């Protein structure tokens, strides 16, 4: 791509760094843009599925951003949603088959949530907001940044829930012998409350994100 570019942008300039960095905090897809909550909460009972899910979503966002960005001038605007859905579901089928082949246990735990990456709003949101109007390379970086921003929240929630809910991390026992697992942590309710607390802390530190109605 860069060889055909006349003005020779640097392959990784400061603007690209910004694309990677903002999704971590200021524009985090989950806690600021409120996208893709469904899967974020459901797969975080243990750390391992959370990490696998984060990687899968990152791969899907990057690849779909790349494909849509390459096609962006040929897609008629009226049918763009359908085109995007087809591209995303094609990628998700590949991810699902790869997981079934190489990580069968995790794929069983993730169950329907792998398929639900298709309707994950982060993917569609990035396609609409970024890939439809930008060149392929920035789109890939944007996908990577948003995927990792999504992943970091999953890992934090998964870490807390597995540590206190099962007393383990990555299925290795961490807590001392006498620790009684906190059953509430593995319940769906606690995932919601934990995410609420993360948002609370994040907004406490970033005053400009607070909602004043």
């Amino acid at each position, binding site marked *: 791509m860069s060889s055909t570019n006349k003005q020779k942008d640097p392959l990784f300039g400061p603007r690209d760094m910004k694309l990677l960095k903002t999704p971590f905090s200021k524009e985090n897809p989950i806690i600021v843009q409120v996208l893709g909550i*469904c899967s974020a909460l459901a797969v975080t009972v243990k750390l391992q599925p959370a990490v696998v899910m984060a990687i899968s979503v990152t791969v899907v966002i990057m690849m779909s951003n790349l494909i849509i960005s390459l096609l962006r001038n040929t897609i008629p605007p009226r049918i763009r*949603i359908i085109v995007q859905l087809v591209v995303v579901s094609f990628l998700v*089928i590949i991810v699902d088959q790869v997981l079934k082949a190489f990580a069968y246990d995790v794929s069983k735990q993730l169950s*329907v949530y792998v*398929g639900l990456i*298709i309707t994950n709003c982060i993917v569609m949101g990035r396609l609409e907001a970024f890939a439809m109007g930008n060149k392929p390379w920035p789109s890939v970086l944007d996908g990577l940044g948003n995927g990792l921003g999504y992943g970091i929240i999953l890992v934090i929630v998964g870490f807390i829930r597995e540590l206190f809910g099962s007393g383990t991390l990555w299925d290795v026992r961490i807590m001392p012998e006498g620790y009684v697992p906190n059953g509430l942590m593995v*319940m769906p309710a606690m995932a919601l*409350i934990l995410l609420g607390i993360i948002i609370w802390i994040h*907004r406490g530190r970033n005053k400009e994100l*607070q909602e004043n109605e």
Partner: protein
Amino acid sequence: MEALNIFIKSIFIDNMIFAFFLGMCSYLAISKTVKTSMGLGLAVTFVLVITVPVNYLIDKYLLQEGALSWISSSFANIDLSFLSFIIFIAVVAGIVQLVEMFVERYSPSLYAQLGIFLPLIAVNCAILGCSLFMQKRDYSNIGEVFSFALGSGIGWLLAIIGIAAISERLKYINIQPALKGLGIAFIITGLMAMAFQAFSGIKL
């Protein structure tokens, strides 16, 4: 009897929002007033009741292993289930479009109520999620699938109206500024999910 059991179970125990977190995005974005949440909830229920049985028939007669044997016995060992994601989402998007056109033509008043929500629903994870759960759980006939879809829709409707009613009241409460809006919405949903856990174990 089994169908009734599935119906009750999918409203209260396997609630789409409180147990599986499906459709959270539109749930958090829309649930500001009871009226709009009612519209969205009805639209979701409506689309679920149509798409899930259609996807069931497609899954049963086209995609499952051996499903094609009704055409010719030589197709009996074909397994197309890896295609289910793309087929299901295509069916959902197509039916949402059809429903939108149909409602616009025959019931303008319903269209005015649901209109703006219908296009959003195509990418609502509750719809696709419901179809995927249907595939996973192996319901034995279309009546059970229908009651599952209806129950899930009503459960979703209940949840979204509950949160909307609470957030209407929250306007008058002095909440810590960092917790306002999204943060408190999550915590309330968590508390509601705990309340719904009291239903677990109910069996007719």
